[in-house]
C-alpha cells in the first residue's frame, strides 16, 4: 500500500475517533465535576500493612458515604491491595502508601486481601 493510500485511509477512518474521544472526555469532565462536588462528606480511614498483615484487619465503615482509605505499606516489599467484593486492585510499593476510593457502600461484609501474601494479608470491612 502506498503512502498516499495509507494517508487517505487514516483520513477516512479517523474522523470518527476524535468524536469518540471528545465524548469520552466530556463524560470524564462531567463526572470529575460531580466527584469534586461530593468530596466534602467523604469518610476517611487508614489501614497499614506490616509483616504482610493488615492493621486493623477488621474495619467498621458507614454506609451511604463515599470512602477514602489510605493504605500505608510499612513493609519493604510491595503488596497488591485487592478486593473482589469491592472491585479494586492496587499495587503499593514498599514503604509507601496509596489511596483507595470507594463508592457509598451498602450494608454488608466485604473481604479484602494482599495478593502477594494471600496466606497472611487478609481483612474485611463491615458496612453498617
Amino acid at each position, binding site marked *: 500500500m502506498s503512502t498516499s493510500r495509507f494517508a487517505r485511509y487514516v483520513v477516512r477512518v479517523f474522523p470518527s475517533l476524535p468524536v469518540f474521544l471528545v465524548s469520552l472526555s466530556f463524560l470524564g469532565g462531567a463526572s*470529575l465535576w460531580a466527584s469534586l462536588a461530593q468530596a466534602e462528606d467523604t469518610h476517611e480511614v487508614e489501614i497499614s500493612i506490616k509483616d504482610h498483615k493488615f492493621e486493623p484487619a477488621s474495619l467498621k465503615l458507614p454506609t451511604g458515604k*463515599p470512602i477514602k482509605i489510605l493504605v500505608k505499606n510499612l513493609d519493604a516489599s*510491595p503488596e497488591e491491595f485487592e478486593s473482589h467484593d469491592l472491585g479494586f486492585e492496587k499495587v503499593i510499593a514498599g514503604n509507601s502508601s*496509596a489511596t483507595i*476510593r470507594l463508592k457509598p457502600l451498602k450494608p454488608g461484609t466485604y473481604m479484602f486481601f494482599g495478593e502477594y501474601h494471600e496466606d497472611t494479608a487478609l481483612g474485611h470491612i463491615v458496612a453498617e
Partner: protein
Amino acid sequence: MLAALVIVFREVLEAGLIIGVVLAASRGVHGRNGAVALGVLAGVLGSVVVAIFAASISDAFDGRGQEIFIAAILLFAVLMLAWHVVWMAQHAREMTQQLRQLGSDVTAGRQSLFALGAAVAIAVMREGSEVVLFMTGIVMQGSNTTSELLAGSGVGLLFGAAVSMVLYFGLAAIPLKRMFSVTGVLVTLLAAGLAASAVKQLSNAGLINIFDTSLWDSSFILSENSWPGRILHVLIGYMDRPTGMQLIAYVVTAATIFILSYVRRTPERRTALSA
C-alpha cells in the same frame, strides 16, 4: 512456591492470551513476528520502568495516578486494536487470496504493524510490572525460600507462555476462509473488554460517578476470579458485576469497531466482519 507460581502464571497468561489473539489476527502480515517481538521487548522494558516508578505513579493526581495511568494505556490499546481490526477488514480479501496462492507472507500489510506492536507492548507492560514488583518483593524479603519462590515464578512464566501458545495454535488452525472474520470478532471483543476495564479504573479513581453501580451479579454462575472467568475476562471482557458505565463502554466500543469495519470492508467480500 505454589503461590508464586500461580501469581506469575496468572499475569503471564493475561498478557499471553492477548498476544495469542493478536498474533492469530495478523496471520500472514509480513513482518508480524518482528513487530510482536519488539512489542514484547518494549513491554518488558516498560514493566521495569513502571515498577521502579510505581510509588510516584500511584501518588500522582492526588492518589489517582495508578488508575489514570492504567486507564490511559488501556484506552490507547483499544484505539490500536480498533485500528488493526478495521485495517484487516479492509484487506482480508486480498490477504486471504495471497496467502492461498503464494503460501507466504503478504507484503501489503505493514501499516497495521505499529498498532499491533503497541497493543502487545501495553499488554506486557501492564501485567509485567506486577510480576516485576512481585519478584522484587521476593528478592527483598531475602528469606531462605527465595530461590524456591523464584523457581516457582519461572515455572509460572513457562506455563503461562505454554497455555497462550495453545490458544494461538488453536486459532491458527481455523481455515483461512473464516480466519479473519473469527479473529476480527475476537479482537473487537478484546478491545471492548479493555475499554470496560479502563472505565472501571476511572470509576475506582472517583472520576466516573454516573451509572457506577453494578447492574447484576453473576459471580455465582461464573466468578470473574475463577480460571474460566479470568480467561473469558481477558478474551471477551466477561464481567460478573459490571456497572452501567462499563456496559456502555463495552457496547459502544464493540459497535464502533463493527460499524467501522463494515463501512470500510472490502466490497467483494461482504461476509468479512458483518456476519
